[in-house]
């Protein structure tokens, strides 16, 4: 039922230059902050508990000493803030610059509550459409073009990079590089309605050749089913509700409301990072998505058990 994929998902566990450098900035802030906090608390205790003569009087001398302390500490505050400001602006400047070596450009379009993904290519047939997953080659700078079809979403893969919003009517770009192969979780970070909590996906960072193979496979239309059960499943898909919303290339299913399912069997998760992609989970999702993601646009489907088995066999064959 529950997704068990161990995916890295923490700003404290960086695997790319963006997240890495922000992590170092954070460590600088953290150390400075601890020192500042301790200094204030020690100052307060010292002021409260210092030895006081029973008949000590306020003298102008003591008061001017206090003034000198205040002045000095203010100067220190300004200096510390100035140092962090310079560090921070310099880092910000280098992070927002577009890497001139960007070799891969991907459109990510936000929907309530899933991600549409399109690998761009000058040749239209070479474009790849998928959903709720992103494969990237290790060590190659990637540009994401972020758009939204409905409300504001935000793309956040903390181990890889900071977040960027997907705003209807605006075009944002996010540049990053993943340096270690692995599975990284992405979470929608801007509240986007009922299922904001369950709008996630995975980034698979893999070696260049493996990525190239994946991309080539994704360009193919869906495989034609070989066994009769799967064949019947395809018919179910095309004739039942499924095709109104979903596309499977190579079939008559051309819906665009929901995710493209052409290679669904190759994906890590179902329902935008909510379930692991197993046959049981898929069955549960098709029959009653409202139980798993209440409010999701996909309706419940009262399929005959035999039809459901066929459909599962077909979808399972979409490698």
């Amino acid at each position, binding site marked *: 039922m529950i997704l068990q994929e161990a995916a890295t*998902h923490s*700003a404290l566990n960086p695997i790319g230059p963006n997240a890495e450098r922000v992590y170092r*900035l954070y460590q600088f802030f953290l150390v*400075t902050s601890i020192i500042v*906090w301790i200094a204030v608390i020690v100052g307060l205790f010292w002021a409260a508990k210092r030895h006081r003569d029973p008949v000590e009087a*306020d003298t102008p001398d003591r008061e001017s000493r206090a003034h000198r302390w205040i002045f000095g500490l203010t100067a220190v505050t300004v200096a510390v803030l100035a140092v962090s400001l310079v560090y921070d602006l310099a880092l*910000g400047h280098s992070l927002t610059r577009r890497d001139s070596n960007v070799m891969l450009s991907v459109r990510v379009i936000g929907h309530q509550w899933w991600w549409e993904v399109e690998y761009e290519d000058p040749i239209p047939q070479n474009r790849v459409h998928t959903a709720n997953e992103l494969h990237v080659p290790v060590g190659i700078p990637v540009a994401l073009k972020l758009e939204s079809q409905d409300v504001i979403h935000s793309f956040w893969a903390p181990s890889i990079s900071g*977040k960027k919003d997907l705003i209807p*009517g605006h075009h944002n770009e996010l540049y990053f590089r993943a340096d270690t192969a692995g599975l990284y979780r992405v979470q929608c970070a801007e509240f986007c309605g009922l299922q904001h909590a369950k709008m996630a996906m995975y980034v698979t960072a893999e070696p260049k050749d493996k990525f190239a193979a994946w991309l080539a496979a994704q360009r193919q239309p869906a495989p034609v089913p070989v066994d009769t059960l799967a064949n019947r499943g395809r018919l179910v898909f095309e004739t039942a509700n499924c095709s109104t919303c979903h596309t499977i290339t190579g079939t008559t299913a051309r819906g665009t409301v929901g995710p493209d399912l052409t290679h669904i069997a190759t994906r890590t998760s179902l329902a935008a990072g909510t379930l692991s992609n197993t046959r049981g989970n898929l069955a549960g999702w098709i029959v009653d998505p409202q139980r798993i993601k209440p409010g999701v646009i996909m309706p419940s489907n009262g399929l005959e058990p035999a039809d459901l088995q066929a459909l599962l066999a077909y979808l399972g064959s979409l490698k």
Partner: protein
Amino acid sequence: MSVTVLPVPEQDLPPAVDPEDHRRLWRTWEPYKGFYGWITSVNHKTVGKRYIATCLVWFLFGGLEAGVMRAQLARPESHLVGPDKYNQLFSMHGSTMMFLFAVPIMIAMGLYLVPLMVGARNIAYPRLNALGYWIFLFGGSMFYIAFLMNTGADAGWFAYVPLSGPEYSAGKRVDFWAQLITFTEIAALIAAVEIIGTVLKTRAPGMSLNRLPLFVWAQLVTAFMVIFAMPSVATGSLFLAMDRLVATHFYNPSNGGDALLWQHLFWFFGHPEVYIIFIPALGFVSQIVTTFSRRPIVGYPVMVLALITTGFIGFGLWVHHMFATTVPQMGAGFFTAASTFIAVPTGVQIFCWIATIWLGRPVWRTPLLFVGGFLAVFVIGGVTGVMLASVPFDLQAHDTYFVVAHLHYVLLGGGLFPLFGAFYYWFPKFSGRLMSERLGKWNFWLLFIGVNVTFFPMHQLGLDGMTRRVYTYLESSGWGALNLTASIGALIIVISMAVFVVNLWISWRHGPLAGANPWNADTLEWLTSSPPPPYNFADTPVVISRSGLWAYGDEVPVVTGLPTHIPFELVTTVMDAEPVLQHEHPGPTIAPFVMAVEVSLMLVAGVFTPWAYPIGFALLAIPWFMWAWPRSGTKEHAENVDAEYSLGAPA
């Protein structure tokens, strides 16, 4: 209406040159009796107390909502509440705490205290003040009645479009939210005008601006911030309401509108709002530190300058809420710098308070304890604030539990702790009785522990990838333990609040009598009795030093001669507070109540039909004329009283 026997012993009243004046003044300033008196009162203390009590009720509601959320999040994949209810809960919680608790209660404390602290008999515009309160009460009630009917706000307290727009939020939930903004913004603007008028024009003679108590300065700066910030959210929420009601396209990208326009309008208000909460709290801290250190504050001019600077820089930060939307480099640099350096004026104030404690002889009563808690908690929120000013770091932390932790450290540390200190400090003035010290210390320590146990783990949760506003999380996320810790912390906060309520309840009835000045404090409110008589001061005191009461010897210099048979107060000049005018005050009247009812009906109807506005505006003429038309009889009454007095009749 006539008072022959004073309701309190004469020796408990503020000193008067002619003690007989008390009898006359009481007769003049006394409200009507019974329910009619209740809805016609225009006394700033009555209105202020109601305002504070009302805010505390909303605070309780907002806290309960937070409690349910923490229960839901205590375990992964919990089914205690579903996403629909959860979204309403956090939207109601945020909107309640910001619009119905934090901002109004800070202002309400000012409405009660500022006239007393500047030596005035009432607030500058008493009827307007009553109107503001009724609007606030009706607006909050509307919001909660809607929530009970499953029409609670569900798009978050900043209700980003297009999610809150007509296409993605059907029903009336967001409309009630937008209307709540209109209600509270009218109330806040009224209060701001009150404070400005009161502080600038009705100060006691001799209280030149450089002798103004720091709390009054804080309220003055806040009032100006309200005037500059509130119209922005008013404009924004009106655009939103019109998009939803009459199909305008302010925020509709497919017809030339812009989703980011909302964010600019909202945060141009939303960030200063944090300082609208925080600056009055700084004022509380300054008064408490002065009183309990037994010496004047160190660096008064610097403190004033710091408040004003904070007010100005507070308007240069709003874009740091929008870094993730992509902000041009130059712009981002400016907003980062402003957001970083706003720490300086606050830092200076912290140094001045610590220096004051160092030079003084601190007495660690509950109010000062809360100031200590304020420093410990707020500084954590302050340093994470500097972190969030950084664009690269913000892009990681934005919209995660790190920000949830930060904002609660700032608002609880910088707002709630000083506010509780202020309750303990001024409760004797409100009620005439002291609060229990023992329960106060329990209240403090439980709150201090609870706040840290609840919110400290959230920093870690946020960096570990937990985004805000999620109704549940997967078991595989590994966030279970820290969330459970936070939920236990929330329980400790609840217990602390229960201790506070018990303390309030017991002390109101049975607390030890306080007398006029239980803390031996220096500001003018402690010159009059506790609680003060309806007219605050019989004779207006003359201020001879920044240290207020501490500068008087055995004798308090006062000015005499204001009429006693009609409500009158002294008007002074803006800078030097030299007397220039005797100003007549209106007596109790039902006009503000009627007008508030009319405006509220218009606004509630405006949720459903645009016709509410033209009709409502036309009908506004009725309460308007009730308000402004000279009441027949007032003059006659005054003349009669004149005659009576000239005959020397009353006993």
